[in-house]
């Protein structure tokens, strides 16, 4: 295998392997971004809840000598601090959800030629297909956050005409997004299952075709 043609083939294989690695890298980056966005969303939500609780506590606790603006600013300060703190706390506490995938990717990164790169890639595909339903499932859980956000937003509009409207809107928003996300989740999960079955079948076919 020392002719020019062979070296061209090897070069083409190397390019294909880099392409495969590029796919996996992009995939993992997407999951990491999802994780970060989720932490940011939770932090914003916690910040807003602190602001909401501080601002509305003046209806229940008599805060003497402070204007409405001062209470709002104090709530804002507490909310921002709480939001930022919760971002870092979640980051520390949260278990790495895609550790198997990141391990498989790290293995691939470390692997060089002749170090079972194909097998490592196949394992990586396995890990990727395993965590696909998890990615979708998390989108379904986001609907609760939309509900809470809607509740807080409506509360700030101070609709005293209809007491409990904020709760009603929050619940409706939550249910709507939950319904849509569940529909999407079920559709996507069956698509992944089908894809996974095809992948397993193709593996068997490949061995039989050898």
């Amino acid at each position, binding site marked *: 295998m020392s002719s020019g043609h062979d070296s061209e083939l090897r070069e083409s294989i190397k390019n294909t392997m880099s*392409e495969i690695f590029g796919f996996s890298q992009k995939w993992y980056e997407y999951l990491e971004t999802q994780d970060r966005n989720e932490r940011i969303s939770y932090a914003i939500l916690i910040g807003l809840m602190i602001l909401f609780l501080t601002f509305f506590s003046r209806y229940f606790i008599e805060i003497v000598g402070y204007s409405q603006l001062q209470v709002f600013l104090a709530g804002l300060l507490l909310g921002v601090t709480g939001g930022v703190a919760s971002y870092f706390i979640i980051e520390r506490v949260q278990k790495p959800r895609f550790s198997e995938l990141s391990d498989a990717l790290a293995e691939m990164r470390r692997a060089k030629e002749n170090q079972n790169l194909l097998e490592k890639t*196949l394992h990586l595909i396995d890990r990727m297909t395993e965590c696909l339903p998890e990615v979708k499932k998390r989108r379904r859980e986001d609907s609760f956050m939309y509900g809470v956000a809607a509740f807080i937003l409506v509360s700030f509009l101070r609709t005293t005409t209809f007491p409990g409207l904020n709760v009603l809107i929050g619940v409706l928003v939550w249910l709507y997004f939950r319904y849509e996300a569940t529909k999407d989740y079920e559709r996507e999960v069956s698509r992944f299952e089908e894809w996974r079955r095809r992948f397993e079948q*193709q593996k068997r076919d490949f061995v039989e075709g050898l």
Partner: protein
Amino acid sequence: MDKPDLYVVARFLDVLYWKGTPMKKTNVQTLVGLNYPRFVEYLEWLQSHGLIAAVTDEQGSDRITLSSKGIESYHRLVEWIRDTMRGIRI
């Protein structure tokens, strides 16, 4: 062997493809990380399917190398993996 594991077959093809020259069985066994009986089983399977060929070097020792069918299979496997990766959508 009825149904070999594709991942192990890929391991053999990878090792032999990138080495490029005929290898001693012991070296292949070390690189594919199989115990001896399992290694022999796979070796026999690969030989019976024409994916590898046994050669004898100048010193008279047995070596194994990828056959042209083995090289072609390796290329097919790489292409298939690439197409599979392309097919994964989030």
